[in-house]
C-alpha cells in the first residue's frame, strides 16, 4: 500500500501520554513512542450500528432514566452538531455515545462517592447515530462541575464525555465536550494536557440561540471531527469486501 486511506494522526495536536499535572498519567503513559505502521484492512474497517440497535429514549437523557411522568433535574439543554472528517465531509450513520454527571456533579456509578446527591431520575448515559448529513442531537441536563483527587484542589469543568466510531477503527475517538465561559477550563489539568489553545477551543461547545426552543430548552453546538478519509482510495479499498 503506497498511500494510507486515513490521513495521519497529528500526535502533537492530541494531549501527550504523560502530562505531569494529571497524576493518573504517571503510571499509565507508555514510555516508548507509538510504532507507526501502514493501515491494513484491520484498521480500515470497524463495527456498524443501525437505528434498530437503539431504544426510543437513548438520545434523551432527561427521560431515559426517569420514572414515568417525571424528569431529570437541572437546566435543560440540547447538545447537537455535526460529525465530520478532516476534509469537512459528513460522517454518516455512526454511533455516538455520551455519559455525564448529573446537575450536582455526581455520577451514577458504583465508584463515585462524591457527597453531592444522586438524582433518582437521571442515569447519565445516552447514544445516537449521526444522520446522512453528519448531524446528531440529544437532550440532557447541564452537568455540574465536580472535585476529583489529583493531589490538590482540582475541579473538573462541566463536561460531557463522548465516544465516537468512524468508518474504520483507525478513526475511533474518545473525547470530552466543555461549555463556553466555564472558568474551570483554564484550571483543569486534564483539559490543559492538550498543548494547543486552538485545539482546546475545538472542545468547547457554544450556546446556540437558533436551536434554543423558547420557554423550553437551550441548545449548545458541538461539532466532532474524525480523521480524514482519502475518498478515492477508501472506496477502492472497501469494494469487493
Amino acid at each position: 500500500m503506497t498511500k494510507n486511506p486515513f490521513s495521519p494522526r497529528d500526535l502533537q495536536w492530541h494531549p501527550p501520554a504523560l502530562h505531569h499535572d494529571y497524576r493518573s498519567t504517571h503510571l499509565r503513559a507508555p514510555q516508548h513512542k507509538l510504532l507507526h505502521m501502514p493501515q491494513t484492512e484491520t484498521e480500515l474497517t470497524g463495527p456498524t450500528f443501525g437505528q434498530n440497535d437503539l431504544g426510543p429514549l437513548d438520545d434523551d437523557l432527561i427521560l431515559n432514566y426517569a420514572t414515568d411522568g417525571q424528569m431529570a433535574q437541572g437546566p435543560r439543554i440540547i447538545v447537537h452538531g455535526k460529525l465530520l472528517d478532516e476534509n469537512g465531509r459528513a460522517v454518516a450513520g455512526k454511533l455516538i455515545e455520551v455519559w455525564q454527571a448529573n446537575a450536582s456533579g455526581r455520577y451514577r456509578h458504583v465508584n463515585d462517592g462524591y457527597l453531592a446527591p444522586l438524582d433518582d431520575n437521571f442515569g447519565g448515559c445516552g447514544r445516537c447515530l449521526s444522520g446522512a448529513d453528519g448531524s446528531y442531537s440529544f437532550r440532557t441536563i447541564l452537568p455540574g462541575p465536580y472535585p476529583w483527587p489529583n493531589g490538590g484542589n482540582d475541579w473538573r469543568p462541566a463536561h460531557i464525555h463522548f465516544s465516537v466510531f468512524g468508518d474504520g477503527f483507525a478513526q475511533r475517538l474518545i473525547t470530552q465536550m466543555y461549555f463556553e465561559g466555564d472558568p474551570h477550563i483554564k484550571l483543569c489539568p486534564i483539559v490543559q494536557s492538550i498543548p494547543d489553545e486552538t485545539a482546546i477551543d475545538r472542545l468547547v461547545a457554544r450556546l446556540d440561540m437558533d436551536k434554543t426552543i423558547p420557554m423550553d430548552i437551550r441548545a449548545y453546538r458541538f461539532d466532532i471531527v474524525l480523521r480524514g478519509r482519502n475518498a478515492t482510495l477508501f472506496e477502492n479499498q472497501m469494494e469487493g469486501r
Partner: protein
Amino acid sequence: MSDFKESPSQTAGPYVHIGCAPQTAGLEQRGMGAPFGHKMIAGVTPGHEMTLDITVLDGEGAPVKDALIEIWQAGPEGSYAPTAQFSNWGRQAADLTTGQARFQTLKPGALKGQAPHVLVWIAARGINLALTSRIYFPDENNASDPFMIAAGDRAETLVAAKAEPGYTHVIRLQGPKETVFFDV
C-alpha cells in the same frame, strides 16, 4: 490551520462504564436499549470458539481496573464481513475488582499477508489518547507478519499465552516488557 482538524482526544475517565458498559457501572437499563459489544457469538458458529482474557497492567504492575477494552478481529474465514452468528467487534470493561476482561470469541483467520491477529484498543483514566495494539497467537506462524517484524525485539509483547480453553494476554503500559502500541 484547517477548521477540520481531528477533535483532540481526552481521557475516558474512571466512569467510562456509564456510557460504554453500563452493566459494569451498576446502571440498570431503565429506558435504554441493550448494551453494545457484550456478546460476539450467537448460536452455532463454524469457527473455533475461544476465550481471550486480557489484563492491562500499570507501571507498578497493578491491574488497571477501570479500563475499557475493545477488540476488532477477522472471523474464522479471515474476513471482516459480519454474520448473524459472529460480531467482529467486542467490548468489555475490566472487572472492577480483578482488572480482568474476558472475551468469548472465535479464533481469527489470517488476512492476506498478515498472521491471524486481534486489534485491541484501550481507554481508561490516565490514558489521554486511547491505545491501539495487536494480539497474536503462540500457535501460529507470526514470523513474516509486518507488524511483528516492525516490533522487532519487542514483538513477544504482542503474543498471547495459551490457557485452555483459549488464551490470556497481558498488556503492560510501562516497564521493561512494555507492550508495543501502534500509530496506524
